[in-house]
């Protein structure tokens, strides 16, 4: 079975229709835990993008070699390998950013979204299609993280990328750890509302 979508559709599908954070509501932990600044969101987004793309391509490459009965263990092994690679690389070359992300890089290994894409897409499709799909999903996650980070950093510390833009701190509350839940909840509600009002307008 080959997918009938072209590469662009595969990428936008991950960012919009099936956005892992806002639509599928998967991999929520980092979205709540460390999205206090745009940079944090971006770094973890890149890490997830890397793992997703490499795992998708790897599984797609070796899909005929995998014995169907040990499918899931093979996925886990693949993901764990790439997570270890990105974990070691970040720790070595970006120690400051890595310290900010703490345990969350290692935790990518348990992200449901990655396993799900491998099972649903990469193990059936061609290598290029898997690459585009992985890229889309990874980018979708990255965009979600950056958007949440943007809102929290702007409202919480009045800054973007660490640069003071507002000159004051509107609501310190937003970068406090527990506020992550509120921000994600409010944003989900907001997007639902936009979607609903568009749908209504379409009917009229």
């Amino acid at each position: 079975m080959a997918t009938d979508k072209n590469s662009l559709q595969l990428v936008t599908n991950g960012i919009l229709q099936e956005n892992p954070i806002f639509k599928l509501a998967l991999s929520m932990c980092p979205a709540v835990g460390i999205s206090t600044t745009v940079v944090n969101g971006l770094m973890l987004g890149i890490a997830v993008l890397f793992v997703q793309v490499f795992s998708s391509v790897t599984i797609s490459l070796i899909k005929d070699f995998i014995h169907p009965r040990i499918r899931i263990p093979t996925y886990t092994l693949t993901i764990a390998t790439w997570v270890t690679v990105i974990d070691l690389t970040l720790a070595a070359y970006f120690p400051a950013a890595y310290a900010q992300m703490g345990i969350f890089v290692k935790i990518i290994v348990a992200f449901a979204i990655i396993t799900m894409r491998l099972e649903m897409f990469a193990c059936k499709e061609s290598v290029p299609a898997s690459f585009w799909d992985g890229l889309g999903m990874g980018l979708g996650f990255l965009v979600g993280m950056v958007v949440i980070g943007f809102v929290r950093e702007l409202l919480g510390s009045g800054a973007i990328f660490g640069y003071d833009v507002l000159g004051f701190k509107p609501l310190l509350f937003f970068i406090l750890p527990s506020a992550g839940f509120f921000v994600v909840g409010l944003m989900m509600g907001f997007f639902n509302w936009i979607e609903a009002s568009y749908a209504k307008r379409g009917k009229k």
Partner: protein
Amino acid sequence: MKDIISIIFRLTLSCIVAGLIMGGTFIFTDRAKKANEHAREEKVMYSLLGHDEGGEDPESMAMHELFRYIVTDGEEQFIGYLLPLSTGFEFITIGLDGSFVSRVPVQLSETQVLESGERDTAIAAALGPTKTIRFADQTLVVTDDGERSAFLLSGKFPGYKTSIAIILALAPDFSIIGFEVMEHEEDPGLGADIERDFFRRQFENKSFESIKALRTIKEPLPQEYFDALEGRIAEEEAAAAIMEKYRLQDIYALTGATISTDAVVMGIKAMTKKFAYRIETLDAVLADQQIAASF
């Protein structure tokens, strides 16, 4: 049966490939990681000493590592120091009351002394089999033209969430030159502000006397002091005057993070007091025994 063999074969092969990829990355990144960590520490040390621009350290400046050990001989405990001398290294043992016990030369090269394993075996060999040693801490003594100009101490103490690791720079009279937070996991927006200038720089130039009685005060930080600490006052003289006005004050607690503030204040206080006591004891012994350490 054929199925099982096939599964085992494929799984083994996958594991070997995965292991090779991870092992390769580890070998590749491990060296870079160590080099980066070392570079970061060095950068922090130089910036604490005020040599950050250009990274050039003056010719006359030299750094000497001083390693402290706890020596146990049967029931009794001693403090031991590995001292750099002009002729090589020597291990000095001092009793708990500050009396001189023994001195033995240790066979080590300049590079070997930085490797904890080789250092420990060399010292153990020099001391003989009845004594056991335990590494306690290490201090960098900075000299300028042979005169001591600063001490650099690494320390770790419990914070609010996990431990906080810092590098503390002390002047020869044990007043604080500055400190830098190396590791912490305090909450962003609250305890994490211990890294910020307006908190860190409150400690600068505090005399040893004021450190001994240092406390946390739960009052809002005065605006002019905040501006001066963050370097937002353009005229240098005005900024210096404000800094001087608050120089011997206690530390203003971070809003909503009194426990983190207290942890840092107490940690620095304890580090400074312990170090001052130890170096004075060591100096007395060195003067008494006429040992010429290279610092």
